[in-house]
């Protein structure tokens, strides 16, 4: 084949591709945006007739848009509540895609070692009951560390975020006191502390304030090389968050049929306790059948091929058995 013919065919194929191209619109969570945009651009490379336009407007916006049927699929960091599902015109399937973890990061003058936290200590600090680093509870689980006499400043997220949801969900599970006074949510009424905007805001404040502690996404800590502590899990092991220990958190949990499950404080020796899925919200009975089929194909493709790309971007992939379950559910429930 000569060159000009090749070019001609290329041009022809491109034009045809452009003509036949369909755009799928999605909106929602910001946390998985980097991995989603990689998936969608890779998917477009392999399936030139499908272009996915994903807008990371936040989980709240994602849920609202999918409820109203203005997007082909949504995405969220926290599962929809029963009321939201009841109020939704569009029935959706929660499809777990990747996992995120939240880590406690701190700035304690004179302490360079990795600090160990028990659930009681974390709850105590974030409720303001443990207010100084020289507290006996901290010294007890960290016998090697000499803590200074320094007031603790709690730093939390000021913007509504899935990160806050995961962290408060964890605190609600391990502390009845927290559950009763503050509860869980993307924004809560924090008993103590100051708020920073975004992971970078919280990390910046922690760096600036001696004696501070806050929570940030594992990805952010890994990419910016921020030190963080280990947390005691339900088996009594102190586990430091990593991609492996986050995936392990999902492995020990019994999956319900609708996948709306919180995996904070899961069973399993190697499981890191402050972790969560992030979900795609896929309409099960879409109005536009052609587009619905395309969304379904894309989701199945992502579950097959996308999980391998996750760790390259510091996301924890789903455990194998969860992938199989999710694929079966997508095949069965999405029409």
């Amino acid at each position, binding site marked *: 084949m000569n060159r000009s013919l090749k070019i001609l065919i290329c041009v022809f194929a491109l034009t045809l591709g452009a003509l036949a191209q369909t755009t799928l619109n999605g909106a929602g969570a910001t946390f998985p945006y980097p991995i989603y945009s990689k998936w969608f651009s890779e998917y477009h490379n392999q399936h030139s007739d499908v272009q996915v336009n994903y807008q990371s407007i936040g989980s*709240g916006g994602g849920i609202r848009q999918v409820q109203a049927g203005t997007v082909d699929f949504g995405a969220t960091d926290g599962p929809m509540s029963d009321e939201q599902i009841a109020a939704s015109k569009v029935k959706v399937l929660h499809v777990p895609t990747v996992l995120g973890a939240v880590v406690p990061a701190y700035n304690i003058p004179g302490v360079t070692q990795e600090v160990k936290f028990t659930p009681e200590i974390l709850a105590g600090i974030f409720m303001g009951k443990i207010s100084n680093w020289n507290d006996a509870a901290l010294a007890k689980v960290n016998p090697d560390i000499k803590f200074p006499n320094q007031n603790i400043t709690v730093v939390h997220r*000021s913007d509504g975020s899935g990160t806050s949801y995961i962290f408060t969900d964890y605190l609600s599970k391990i502390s009845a006191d927290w559950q009763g006074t503050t509860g869980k949510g993307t924004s809560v009424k924090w008993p103590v502390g*100051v708020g920073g905007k975004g992971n970078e805001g919280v990390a910046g404040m922690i760096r600036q304030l001696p004696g501070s502690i806050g929570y940030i996404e594992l990805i952010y800590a890994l990419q910016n090389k921020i030190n963080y502590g280990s947390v005691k899990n339900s088996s009594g092991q102190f586990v430091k968050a990593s991609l492996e220990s986050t995936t392990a958190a999902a492995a020990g949990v019994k999956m319900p049929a609708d996948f709306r499950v919180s995996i904070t404080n899961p069973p399993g020796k190697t499981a890191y306790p402050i972790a969560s899925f992030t979900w795609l919200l896929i309409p099960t009975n879409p109005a536009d059948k052609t587009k619905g089929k395309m969304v379904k194909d894309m989701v199945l493709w992502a579950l097959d091929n996308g999980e391998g790309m996750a760790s390259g971007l510091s996301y924890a992939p789903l455990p194998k058995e969860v992938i199989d379950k999710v694929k079966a559910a997508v095949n069965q429930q999405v029409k």
Partner: protein
Amino acid sequence: MSDDANPLNSPESPEHTQQPMTAIPTLAQAATERKTFAVSSALARIRQSHPRSSRIPDAVFKVLILLTAASVFAIVVFVLWELIDKSRLSLHQFGLGFFVGHEWDPVNDQYGAMPFIYGTLVSSFLALLMAVPLSIGVAVYVTEMCPMRLRAIISFLVELLAAIPSVIYGLWAIFVLAPLLRDYVEPFLAKTLGWTGLFTGPVYGIGMLAAGIILAIMIVPIIASITREVLTAVPQNQREAVLALGATRWEMIRMGVLRNARIGIVGGIILGLGRALGETMAVTMVIGNRPEVSKSLFAPGYTMASVLANEFTEATGDLYLSALIEIGLALFLVTLVVNALARLLVWSITGGSTGRVRA
């Protein structure tokens, strides 16, 4: 300039395409000399050359201008209507108690706007307290005392400050201002002025004081450049007259310049206040984002614009969303009231006169 606009745009004047070329230098010259003679003679020439041209374009022009003015009303009414409409749920649930409530708890669906209203007003007031004397000082120095060469440099720097994006101010505040406040300024204030109750409690660096300072830095360029323009517009003979009466330089500035320019200066301050009330990014980065009313300026606070920016994207509940929009309504009303008060203040000072130099 408006008078000559329609003959130039008139479709009936093909033979006068040269007119703008000659008219523009004439007008520019006229403006600098504050004389209208050149303009009127230019207009007279245009009118002579095509007498029928003035009526229709004039009417069209009048309607167009009226429409642009009316659009401002339309926008305000539309915004207000949207805000009220979308916050109906929360208005119904909490009534007027919303504006005085102290609780902000999205988990239990309890919402009150007081801490945010308080934070917005206090941070803006703090900012004005610092920015107004500074800006007027800068403007007076630049217009009245500054050597020519330095004047250009200072003016340029002031305008440069206005061009810095607010997120940059915020970052600078987190990494430079907050540590400075925490290590030096706030301990000093606590020691010397702690008895006032305004400077007590734990020292974070971030908090209401940091927000006030960063806002002050952000509104200085606005107030300073407007004040400078206004001071420049005070006629030279006013200064000469006061000096001729034997006034010192300070008296000349006070009586001859600032007194004449006060309405314009207040106009500049109102514009600066507007920016301070609505500023979001820089404030939220340093104010600490804690919805609490605290007397101490060291304590973290929260503003209306910040809570909107922070929580809107992830707000899922209907009542939650509605409460956030009502915060927007509260911000709108607070801005309205503050502006109205400022206008009243100006009127009470000047007795309603409008003949002075304006911005």
